[in-house]
């Protein structure tokens, strides 16, 4: 457990600089859409020009039928199965995507793009607005999950793919998966939404609001113009991350990992240093997060999730949203996830049942909370493998 006071500040600064460089000049491939191809945003504004940074793994087959789109979560990026140029860590789903893995890159062509509004190379609040020559900051229109999916659709078409074999993702990525099946039902053969819901709950909006208020209460946020002033609201963003991080875990897992153990000391310090390991752990999580993520982008991403409510777009009926769907669905929830509890996932399953769609659903027993979708969970991997393989057989994809 690294104590915040021992974080290598020089290294942190280097990471932070790398993060900002990736926002402006991504080292991954980029698809640029000019004024002739604007992104029609739900906010009622056409965004142009804009760009999406993306990575691909594996090879597209001759009839272009083996493409899988992987959608990342709130603070994820398009380095799903390759080393992050910012943190130097392996891809966030490198245990699931790769040769011989549940999402087998020997069989499938995997695409993962940084969402619109993100901060790793796709157009977002840290990007430069060509009209002003300054970072967008808060002048970027508010982005929705549907906008993210609309942008991904343009990228998929740019890559010459008409129909995706599968769309897969967890948490905010799962929201994008659901939105894909509703916005473009005939373009998705199989959908695997994980640890997600068809809307953001009041409690989840509440936690996001706490996070946003923490960012905006930091004087260095400077009404969103911090990049122009050479500042960064690291304290506010770190607090936002600390709060959010608790929601990704579970009480059981916290107790198991940390209990009431003290950090590098035998007795209480009778002060407000990180006496407890859990405090030290959270501070570390906060500190490392600010090095790789843009504060304004965090505001936009959380807002997009808050606005998400598929049923609301269909007269309050989730079943109507899925009516006539020919997509094969498989939903996965985790028993100790209290951010997107099993019931939220099951509500989607019930709506799909009511719409007579083909759906599988499995709840994985684990005490690791919401974050379980990013961890090694053998039953989870088996479910992905089984579902994707059977969908591949149905799609006629050869081994």
């Amino acid at each position, binding site marked *: 457990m690294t104590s915040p006071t021992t974080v290598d500040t020089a290294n942190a600064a280097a990471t932070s600089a790398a993060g900002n460089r990736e926002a402006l000049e991504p080292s991954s491939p980029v698809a640029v859409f000019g004024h002739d191809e604007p992104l029609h945003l739900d906010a009622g504004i056409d965004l142009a020009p804009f760009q999406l940074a993306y990575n691909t793994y594996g090879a597209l087959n001759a009839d272009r039928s083996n493409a899988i789109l992987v959608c990342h979560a709130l603070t994820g990026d398009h380095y799903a199965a390759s080393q992050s140029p910012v943190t130097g860590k392996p891809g966030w789903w490198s245990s699931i995507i790769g040769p011989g893995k549940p999402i087998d890159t020997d069989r499938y062509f995997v695409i993962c793009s940084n969402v619109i509004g993100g901060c790793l190379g796709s157009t977002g609040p840290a990007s430069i607005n060509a009209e002003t020559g300054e970072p967008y900051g808060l002048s970027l229109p508010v982005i929705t999950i549907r906008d993210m999916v609309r942008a991904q659709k343009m990228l998929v078409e740019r890559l010459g793919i008409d129909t995706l074999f599968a769309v897969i993702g967890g948490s905010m990525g799962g929201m994008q998966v659901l939105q894909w099946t509703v916005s473009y039902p005939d373009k998705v053969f199989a959908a695997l939404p994980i640890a997600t819901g068809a809307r953001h709950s009041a409690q989840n909006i509440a936690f996001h609001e706490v996070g946003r208020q923490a960012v905006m209460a930091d004087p260095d946020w400077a009404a969103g113009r911090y990049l122009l002033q050479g500042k960064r609201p690291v304290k506010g963003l770190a607090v936002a991350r600390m709060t959010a991080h608790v929601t990704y875990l579970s009480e059981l897992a916290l107790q198991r990992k940390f209990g009431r153990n003290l950090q590098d000391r035998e007795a209480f310090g009778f002060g407000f240093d990180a006496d407890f390991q859990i405090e030290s752990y959270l501070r570390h999580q906060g500190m490392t997060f600010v090095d790789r993520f843009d504060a304004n982008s965090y505001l936009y991403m959380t807002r997009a999730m808050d606005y998400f409510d598929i049923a609301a777009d269909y007269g309050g009926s989730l079943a109507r949203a899925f009516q006539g769907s020919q997509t094969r669905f498989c939903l996965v929830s985790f028993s100790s996830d209290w951010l997107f509890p099993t019931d939220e996932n099951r509500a989607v399953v019930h709506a799909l049942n009511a719409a*007579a769609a083909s759906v*599988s659903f499995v*709840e994985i027993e684990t005490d690791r909370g919401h974050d379980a979708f990013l961890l090694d969970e053998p039953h989870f991997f088996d479910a992905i493998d089984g579902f994707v393989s059977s969908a591949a*057989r149905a799609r006629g994809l050869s081994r």
Partner: protein
Amino acid sequence: MMSSVEGRPVASGANGELAAPAAIRLDLAVIAELVTAKSRVLDIGCGDGALLALLEARRQVDGRGIELSQTGVNECVARGLSVIQGDADSDLVHYQDDAFDYVILSQTIQATRNPKVVLSELLRIGQRAIVSFPNFGHWSIRYALGFRGRMPVTANLAHAWYETPNIHFCTIRDFVELAENELGATVETAIAINATGQKMGMKMPWWFWNLFGQQAVFVLKR
């Protein structure tokens, strides 16, 4: 509970008797014969997906399943079957009327909390309901209760009274009474299977079936 990790509740032979797994295969084979090709089928309490896989292979059905255990669901999903984790008592309400040609409840009704509601739900969401269950009127059970004065523990009903998931037993006659008189359903087909796994003759009277049928399979229609 509707079913356990080991499979269908009545069939999980606690003392490893071979009769139980043999009974599963027979029960499933009989049901498979009753389902028409290319129909839409929902199997409630589908266990590891053995029946659904059989129906998809032999009858090319469009099959769906509901299963309570994570292990069972995982096995089904790994086999490429569309199965959700859930149970008969709470999850049927979400399906539309006439959503399926057949809704199958195999060796499960006696483990539901409310068999009457479950059965009426089957008849609502399926054109036909196929229900199989262990006959509590079988002579061996009557013997155990009537002469030995003990709750029966047989190869087919392998649990002691204090740990059985089977909470709503019925005889063949009880079932017919519920289906026809209480729910107004029509018995389209009725098959009784004796202790040696043979289908019993259709000409036999009900009392004979009720005494010698170890399991029964019914096809009901609204």
